[in-house]
């Protein structure tokens, strides 16, 4: 049994207009039927372009946005249907680390107050001394100086602020941490430090992670399983080493093309998939396969009309593509201008 198990989760935001009273004139299909499992102590990496619904998915799991339908099974309970006090109590076990460490910290709270707020909310305070000790232990764990307690967020550097954000999540001793692009707002030089910190903490405390990122490079070595998201749905999921070696979905192939490979020979000879066009609007997603409007392998049948299911194609490797097998076997050729060897490639 996985610790966290999401089934057919949908989050549709109503689009409202109206002079006197708001009318719903449509929906943004931000998350549209996502299923995934995160094993206890494991890390699930979720990648996808900006706007594909990654953050919304993460927030829906934590019930920070309203869930339209589907279930979020956590340790035997369905979080998607919990309400009020029971939901609030459950929150201590699942925590979030945000993308922007500045805006996710209240500028009027000092570090001690930030770190004690959750403890107070769950009555985990004990006496003053015990609480202080626990908070200081947490500060040590994330590598912040003890003197940080009385200081305010703006007095810290970006990397340190993200450490405060991580400490805030840790202080409640959660089982699951959802990290929404935890390093993309940070300088490249500190990105690795923060990723390493997350890894260390996982080893020491047995945490379970759902890590969201918009590029594969960030989640690559910390994830056990990686899911690739496109326009509200997962198009491919595989153990991370498998995904890198043999991506099967055309969209994943395209994403991979953007990640530099350290080996120069491989870098020069590998195929690259170039995507045309922009991400369609999630308020008006394409019919059938969401990716068919940009897919170089698009076929006359099925792609435009039938939405492919995520199906198992290998050991833990799932792909949502009608023609995955044919593409793999080379029976279907991509449109000539979309796939190029690096020798002829112009950087798009």
């Amino acid at each position, binding site marked *: 049994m996985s610790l966290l198990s999401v089934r057919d989760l949908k989050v549709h935001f109503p689009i409202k207009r109206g002079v006197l009273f708001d009318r719903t004139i449509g929906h943004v299909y931000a998350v549209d039927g996502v299923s995934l499992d995160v094993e206890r102590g494991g890390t699930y990496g979720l990648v996808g372009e900006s706007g594909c619904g990654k953050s919304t998915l993460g927030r829906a799991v*934590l019930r920070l946005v309203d869930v339209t339908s589907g279930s979020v099974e956590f340790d035997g309970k369905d979080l998607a249907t919990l309400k009020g006090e029971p939901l609030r109590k459950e929150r201590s076990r699942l*925590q*979030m680390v945000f993308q922007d460490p500045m*805006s996710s910290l209240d500028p009027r709270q000092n570090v001690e107050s930030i770190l004690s707020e959750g403890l107070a909310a769950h009555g985990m305070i004990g006496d003053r001394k015990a609480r202080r000790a626990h908070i200081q232990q947490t500060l040590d764990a994330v590598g912040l100086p003890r003197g940080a307690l009385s200081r305010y967020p*703006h007095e810290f*550097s970006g990397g340190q602020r993200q450490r405060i954000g991580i400490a805030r999540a840790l202080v409640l001793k959660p089982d699951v941490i959802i990290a929404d692009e935890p390093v993309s707002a940070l300088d490249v030089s500190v990105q690795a430090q923060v990723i390493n910190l997350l890894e260390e903490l996982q080893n020491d405390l047995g945490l379970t992670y759902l890590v969201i990122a918009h590029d594969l490079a960030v989640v690559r070595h910390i994830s056990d399983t990686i899911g690739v998201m496109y326009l509200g749905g997962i198009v491919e999921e595989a153990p991370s080493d498998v995904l890198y070696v043999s991506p099967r979905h055309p969209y994943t192939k395209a994403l991979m093309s953007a990640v530099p490979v350290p080996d120069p020979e491989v870098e020069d000879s590998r195929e690259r998939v170039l995507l045309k066009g922009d991400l369609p609007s999630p308020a008006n997603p394409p019919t059938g396969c969401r990716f068919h409007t940009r897919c170089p392998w698009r076929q006359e049948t099925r792609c435009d009309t039938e939405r492919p299911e995520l199906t198992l194609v290998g050991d833990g490797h799932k792909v949502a593509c009608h023609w995955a097998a044919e593409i793999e076997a080379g029976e279907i050729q991509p449109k000539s201008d979309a796939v190029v060897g690096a020798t002829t490639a112009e950087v798009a």
Partner: protein
Amino acid sequence: MSAKTDRIDRLAELTARKDEGGHGLWYEAFRRLRRNPLAMTGAVIILLFVLIAILAPWLAPHDPAAQTWLGEIRGAEGFIPGPRSGNWLGVDGLGRDELSRLIIGSRQSLLVGVVATLLGFTAGAILGGLSGAFLGMFGKAGRWVDSILMRFNDMALAVPSLLLAISVATILGQGLVTVMIAVGVTQIPVFARLLRGSMLAQSHSDYVLASTALGVRKRRIVLNHILPNSMSPVLVQATLSLATAIIEAAGLSFLGLGGANAANPEWGVMLADSQQYLATNLRLAVYPAVAIIITALGFTLLGEAMREALDPKLRK
């Protein structure tokens, strides 16, 4: 919606934006204000105005109510003495020293402006705060309450404020308190919409999400996080409101709703009194008018500069 509501909403969203620098929003804003000559001009005008109002009894060279020179005017067959060494701005139609009346009159304007703005601020903040709190705390029912409160508020906002003030003053009858209440009432919907909008913008911010994720209770989030962080636009508006309040208070007094009181001169009343001498002594109208304009200008300059300092889009 109207330009007025758009302006309010724009102001409301300001503090929700991400801060670029490591420093606080106000720290940056003040640094920019200090370099803005218009803001400094406004601040100096306000400072002078407040000092004059406070020190008025010591600054005024004569008793503002004493008709010392009435005999002189009568003797000269209605000729009103202009500026001269004893009376720097001349005397008014009833033989009182004009400068002393202007100086003492500043107190009334400051008093009405401050009290009216405080009233509008307090009542508006309660209304807007409640609306925003309902919106944030009570789900669907809360959204309904908020919706209804804000529709009424928008209707009140759509009424020209001087008209609203006159209506209130007519109901309450003449008097200084009337003017304060009437002018204050017109500010209520402005502050209400502003604070509610500001709270709404804050409630979408990441740190509110973070607190929710921690399991902090909604009431605590609203009171400890959303409300305190929503106050900066309201303070900017308070500065701007002082200008409006001073002009409206003068307007109401001009219309005779202020309850004339010889011992307590008021700029609006002075303006009204000057009407009968317009043809011969235009200066009697010009002095109070200029006083009103400069004071209102001071608050507007500073208020607008604060808006601009907080708003990256208005900044060049």
